[in-house]
């Protein structure tokens, strides 16, 4: 409709008010009467047997309510944590996912592993009493790097997982790809390392279990991106409580980036313990606990071969990756280096033959799972580094070689050799706009100018693609997912014409309370301040799958569109009755229902009122105006675009300055450009963080996490980042009613390759991420 609050308008966010006045309600802001505090005792060792645990002294300490352990949970029949996506190895065997008790039983497998929970009247008392719990360990050999873990003779982390191999998976046509490589004019071969990251949402994870003995209901407040998935897993697999007696509330959540998708030990323990002790229990992670025990991201070691003909046309891509999954398979850990990775290796290009194999190995480190982009940044990094290096080796311009390989705008639907069918795109258009914005033709002169100052200037490209809007339930089911990936929406008109939308999506910074309200305002003509979006409470909203994989608008927004369709259909019947016309003659536009060719009309608000006060009302229509819809997507969506980074390196200090950043992204239709731009900024910042600053390091010798605080783990700060120049192009998605593709992860997916291509272009030499001043300096000095 294109109103000031409709689709396409940069409406200021409705949710901001409470945050800017300090009235946001994050988990640690919530307290329950009679609340106790939980403190987790964690393993100081990377790998050890627990030979004894004595809590006698702790239990006598002031204020202590209980000390709870893994065997206590087991005795109560609480099941282990699960991995919800089954992967089948090359040889047809299922992946190995050893039992993961929420509190350790007999053995600890990483530094930070949850061993026991001390519950006390105050946090200080719980912390003090934890010192009194006597635990003896017998240390075992450990292994940190995935390459080492998969090598012969490595320490065995799980008795039932020989060689620490969870799975050995493949995708694509090996013989055809080998053939393409052996017949090629040129083959680029590279080892690539995708560094391990720690997500670091600014709100630490937290949980508050609150049992009501009167109703036998457990309420679990938790920092979750998907409260219904939490409830389902905690009921069906952990047997904490039956689903109808477990309410999960994810209030305001301070960022997630994937790390709050998973069902972790701590919330499982709090949900169980509150009933056992009949007291509310709150646990809030200290930042150091977040570093140790939030699921980490990335951590791939890859060898890739890209084959070209004499013109730079790609003939084949072969990728062999070792993925570090940490010590247990976290909730979606197995999907990340497989179906969210191998399936994107065609990039934006027509590649006739692709083969990918992935070995997932257990190590004595925190579990690794989805982090912003999840698999797709790793795939983009492989494809976009390989094509860039190939271009350099063959002496072809990096923009030109990409254009020679782009899938043409009229080639859709385009089926890749790695089971994806792209529905739409215009890759050359995004590239051309980006080239123009960065003034590519002026680069040589700028480089020469840098040279006169003794600086090295570089430019780097990343033409990324991602698969978002995860995903058609039947398709993901056939690939091993344990759940369906549809979304729900309930659109409820109140009698006075205002609207409450209940969505299964969850907003933890993405601005759903505004974007979703714009859809209602646009389609049904309701003033935007009359629309309320409710999410994050299984006691209020219909069952939904939550927010991750840039799915909220493409899937959750589409569910809202379906519910709107039902509202419109019902409203037409009411209008026809009231206006004494036939239903076929009622035309609807933006909340106004008109008898065609007349000036007789009713507004949505009048119809809603009539539905609740049905005095003059059609006999075959139910009262009320409250419709629920579930939407199962037809396909993934495929956001894509080109990012170009320009950098200047000081060879004497090794510092890299990002001089310019251009992003041209195709997100399909855009509901709120301001919010979309903000999402892109944040994603690029995280991608730059990965390429330049961030690196999770465990000490190989001791197994200790060396980067366990903000003093050691380098987070991007305001003065590390440039101003980004962001534009969109809009090729509507063909498979959902809004034509949207998703924008939440694009920046994080695209940025690392663009920046590393720029830095290595400047250096004339390869280095791995992160490009720290030391590494850059060494390369610049030829060391």
């Amino acid at each position, binding site marked *: 409709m294109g109103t000031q609050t409709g689709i396409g308008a940069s409406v*200021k*966010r409705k*949710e*901001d*008010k*409470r*945050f*800017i*006045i*300090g*009235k*946001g*309600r*994050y988990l*640690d*802001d919530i307290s329950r009467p009679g609340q106790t505090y939980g403190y987790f005792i964690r393993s100081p060792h990377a790998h050890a047997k627990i030979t004894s645990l004595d809590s006698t002294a702790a239990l006598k300490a002031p204020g202590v309510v209980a000390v709870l352990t893994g065997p206590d949970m087991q005795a109560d029949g609480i099941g282990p944590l699960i991995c919800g996506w089954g992967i089948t190895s090359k040889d047809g065997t299922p992946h190995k996912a050893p039992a993961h008790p929420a509190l350790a039983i007999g053995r600890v497998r990483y530094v930070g592993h949850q061993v026991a929970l001390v519950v006390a009247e105050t946090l*200080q008392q719980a912390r003090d009493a934890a010192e009194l719990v006597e635990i003896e360990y017998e240390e075992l050999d450990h292994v940190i790097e995935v390459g080492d873990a998969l090598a012969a003779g490595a320490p065995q982390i799980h008795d039932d997982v020989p060689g620490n191999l969870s799975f050995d998976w493949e995708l694509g046509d090996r013989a055809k790809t080998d053939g393409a490589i052996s017949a090629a004019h040129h083959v680029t071969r590279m080892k690539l390392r995708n560094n391990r990251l720690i997500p*670091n*949402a*600014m*709100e*630490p994870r937290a949980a508050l279990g609150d049992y009501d003995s009167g109703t036998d209901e457990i309420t679990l407040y938790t920092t979750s991106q998907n409260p219904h998935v939490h409830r389902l897993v905690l009921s069906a697999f952990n047997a904490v409580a039956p689903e109808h007696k477990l309410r999960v509330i994810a209030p*305001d*959540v*301070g*960022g997630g*980036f994937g790390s709050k998708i998973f069902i972790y030990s701590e919330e499982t323990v709090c949900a169980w313990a509150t009933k056992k002790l009949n007291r509310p229990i709150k646990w809030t992670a*200290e*930042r*150091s606990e977040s570093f140790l025990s939030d699921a980490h991201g990335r951590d791939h070691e890859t060898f890739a071969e890209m084959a070209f003909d004499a013109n730079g046309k790609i003939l084949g891509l072969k990728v062999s990756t070792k993925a570090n999954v940490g010590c247990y398979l976290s909730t979606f850990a197995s999907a990340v280096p497989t179906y969210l990775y191998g399936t994107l290796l065609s990039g934006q290009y027509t590649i006739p033959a692709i083969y990918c194999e992935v070995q997932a190995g257990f190590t004595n480190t925190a579990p690794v799972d989805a982090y912003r982009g999840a698999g797709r940044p790793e795939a983009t990094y492989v494809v976009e580094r390989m094509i860039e290096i190939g271009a350099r080796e063959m002496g072809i311009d990096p923009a030109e070689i990409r254009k020679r390989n782009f899938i043409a705008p009229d080639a859709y639907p385009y089926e890749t050799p790695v089971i994806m069918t792209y529905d739409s795109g215009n890759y050359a258009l995004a590239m051309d706009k980006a080239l123009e914005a960065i003034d590519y033709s002026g680069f040589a002169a700028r480089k020469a100018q840098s040279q006169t100052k003794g600086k090295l200037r570089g430019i780097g490209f990343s033409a990324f693609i991602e698969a978002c809007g995860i995903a058609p339930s039947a398709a993901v089911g056939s690939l091993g997912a344990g759940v369906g990936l549809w979304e729900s929406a309930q659109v409820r008109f109140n009698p006075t014409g205002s609207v409450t939308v209940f969505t299964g999506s969850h907003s*933890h*910074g*993405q*601005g759903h309370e505004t974007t979703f309200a714009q859809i209602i305002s646009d389609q049904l003509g309701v003033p935007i301040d009359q629309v309320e979006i409710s999410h994050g409470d299984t006691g209020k909203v219909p069952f939904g799958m939550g927010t991750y994989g840039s799915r909220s608008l493409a899937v959750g927004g589409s569910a809202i569109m379906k519910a709107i369709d039902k509202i419109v259909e019902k409203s037409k019947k009411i209008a026809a009755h009231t206006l004494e016309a036939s239903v076929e003659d009622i035309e609807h536009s933006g909340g106004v229902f008109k008898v065609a060719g007349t000036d007789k009309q009713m507004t949505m608000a009048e119809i809603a009122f009539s539905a609740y006060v049905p005095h003059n009302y059609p006999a075959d229509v139910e009262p009320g105006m409250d419709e629920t819809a579930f939407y199962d997507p037809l396909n993934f969506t495929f956001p894509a675009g080109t990012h170009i980074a320009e950098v200047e390196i000081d060879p004497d200090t090794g510092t890299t300055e990002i001089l310019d950043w251009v992003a041209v992204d195709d997100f399909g239709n855009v509901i709120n450009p*301001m*919010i979309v*731009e*903000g*999402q892109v*900024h*944040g*994603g*690029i*910042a*995280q991608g730059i963080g990965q390429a330049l600053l961030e690196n999770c390091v465990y000490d190989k010798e001791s197994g200790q996490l060396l980067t366990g*605080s*903000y*003093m050691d783990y380098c*987070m*991007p*700060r*305001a*003065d590390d*980042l440039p*101003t*980004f120049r962001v534009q969109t192009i809009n090729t509507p998605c063909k498979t959902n009613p809004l034509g949207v593709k998703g924008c939440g992860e694009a*920046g994080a997916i695209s940025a690392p390759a663009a920046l590393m291509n720029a830095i290595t272009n400047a250096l004339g030499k390869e280095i791995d991420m992160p490009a720290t001043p030391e590494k850059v300096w060494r390369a610049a000095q030829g060391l």
Partner: protein
Amino acid sequence: MPTVSMTVNGKPVTAEIAPNTLLVSFLRENLRLTGTHVGCDTSQCGACVIHIDGESAKACTVLALQANGAEITTIEGLAKGNNLHPMQKAFQENHGLQCGFCTTGMIMSAVDLVKKHGKPDDATIRKGLEGNICRCTGYQNIVKSVKAAAQEMEG
């Protein structure tokens, strides 16, 4: 237990507290002013920034007892009744926040920054906010917000 007295958002408060109580815990737990957040345990993130006698400070790094007799302003006390502070307005106008967790500390830091620098340029703002980590926004719209607020605050 020792007694502590201070003025918080214009109201005098007195309480008996354990001597090791951090100012941030005192504000959050005793006074239930939960707009001041805790994002780290090493005094690095700035989620806890408040004003002590008009100067920004990390409330996680100060004992409540050290603030005895001080004038404290938290995010809850920044607006004058229903009139938002120009910095608060600017954050909303310029999409300077996403999840909102860093925002309260960021706003408190930024108010002090503008007070010290008048109309700071981008580089000064970026440097001045070094002690505040935001994981969501990439900082660009935060810089824009601070600039816009500075225009209004400094006329």
